[in-house]
């Protein structure tokens, strides 16, 4: 069981202060002060970390420090004052390559780097860069199933694969999701992970899942659903009905805001502010009230958590 002090320490993540993004069912998520978020702590409360879009293997101007960025993120998570219960990587672990052999090399290297994480309860998911060219074959060899579910302290976590088939989730996976949900009470706490957004954030940039609406329809009858995703290389928060969707910062390069540029090209690397726009996310899950407090931890030196 964690106490309030530890909770606040976690929320401050490695000494960063600031505000926490709180996602709850009481309407659109709100920002609250970390130090004032002293909600009652129960044994069912816990923390996890979301890391995403590390694009290991990329070489180019988007991030000239790629060799350092992922290890730096691993170190930042290892230095948290309170270890998370688990860590989840929400896709694009590696950068795409047409060479199947090179793809496997990159996955092997990625695994070696993240094996240095102190917390060993680590879950992985594919992005289209990992799994989009071979329908997830190499990914499955390295990391296992592309979709899965697990339970942790009363929360039902469901990882959906909306990348290994570029056309979307597919009817088979939607049927699988329906089966997962069938056993749950309408008040069950459900967290869904995916790489791409399940909703139409900006379809012109493929920031959407063609049949994601069908998954949302299946989830809609449940009162306590929150979704986390990656892919768009920036923090974003969106509501579909009562379901909150949160994307996290990348560990490679930031992308422009949806629709703000003609194409979703990387925000140019700024040598004066290396790692700007990159980071990891800490999530505190509370059972009463059902809520997820989010803290975005930037990798840039001197940047404030938000």
């Amino acid at each position, binding site marked *: 069981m964690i106490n309030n002090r530890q909770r606040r320490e976690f929320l401050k993540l490695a000494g960063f202060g600031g505000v926490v993004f709180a996602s709850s069912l009481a309407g659109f998520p709100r920002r609250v002060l970390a130090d004032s978020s002293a909600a009652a702590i129960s044994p069912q409360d816990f923390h996890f970390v979301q890391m995403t879009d590390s694009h290991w293997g990329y070489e180019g101007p988007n991030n000239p420090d790629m060799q350092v960025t992922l290890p730096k993120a691993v170190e930042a998570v290892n230095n948290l004052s309170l270890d998370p219960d688990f860590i989840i990587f929400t896709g694009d672990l590696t*950068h*795409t*390559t*047409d060479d199947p052999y090179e793809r496997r090399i990159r996955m092997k290297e990625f695994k070696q780097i993240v094996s240095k994480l102190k917390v060993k309860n680590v879950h992985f998911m594919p992005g*289209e860069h990992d799994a*989009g*060219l071979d329908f997830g074959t190499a990914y499955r060899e390295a990391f296992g199933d592309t979709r899965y579910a697990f339970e942790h302290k009363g929360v039902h976590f469901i990882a959906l694969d909306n*990348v290994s088939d*570029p*056309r979307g989730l597919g009817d088979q996976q939607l049927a699988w999701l329906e089966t997962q949900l069938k056993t749950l009470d309408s008040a069950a706490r459900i967290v869904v992970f995916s790489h791409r957004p399940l909703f139409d954030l900006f379809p*012109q940039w*493929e920031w959407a899942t063609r049949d994601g609406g069908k998954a949302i329809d299946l989830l809609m009858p449940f009162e306590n659903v929150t979704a986390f995703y990656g892919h768009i290389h920036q923090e974003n928060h969106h509501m579909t009905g009562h379901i909150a969707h949160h994307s996290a910062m990348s560990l490679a390069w930031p992308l422009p805001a949806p629709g703000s540029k003609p*194409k*979703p*090209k990387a925000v140019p690397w700024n040598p004066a502010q290396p790692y700007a726009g990159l980071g990891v996310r800490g999530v505190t899950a509370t059972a009463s009230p059902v809520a997820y407090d989010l803290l975005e931890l930037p990798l840039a030196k001197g940047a404030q958590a938000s």
Partner: protein
Amino acid sequence: MISFKLKTTLSGVKIVGLTVVGIGLAMFAISQSTSVAERVIKISAERYEYSPAKVTLKKGEAVILELTSEDRLHGFHIKELGIRADVLPGQPVRVRIVPDKVGTFPFTCDLFCGSGHGDMSGMITVTN
């Protein structure tokens, strides 16, 4: 909204269903029957380009775009027209269109196909 369902011919070539949203926005139309006299324009997709990448059509002329893939699954998406198709190797897809407005209409691959995916595009130009 006018919807057209998928139709597969005896030769195995798919006629892609189109959804034209709003009569006023319907710059392209599709008819229920196919004439043998209609011009067929073949467009092949291969990472990371379409060939030809530029297609010129005449306003009012019914044409069939026959889409093929030389390597893997690609998308064919003309956003302005609400037209899209999945194009698999060995499975040509036919899209019949009748342009009723001049202009330029970019088409893109909207199914991730590799490192150059974001630049895989072409242009349809409609003239009088």
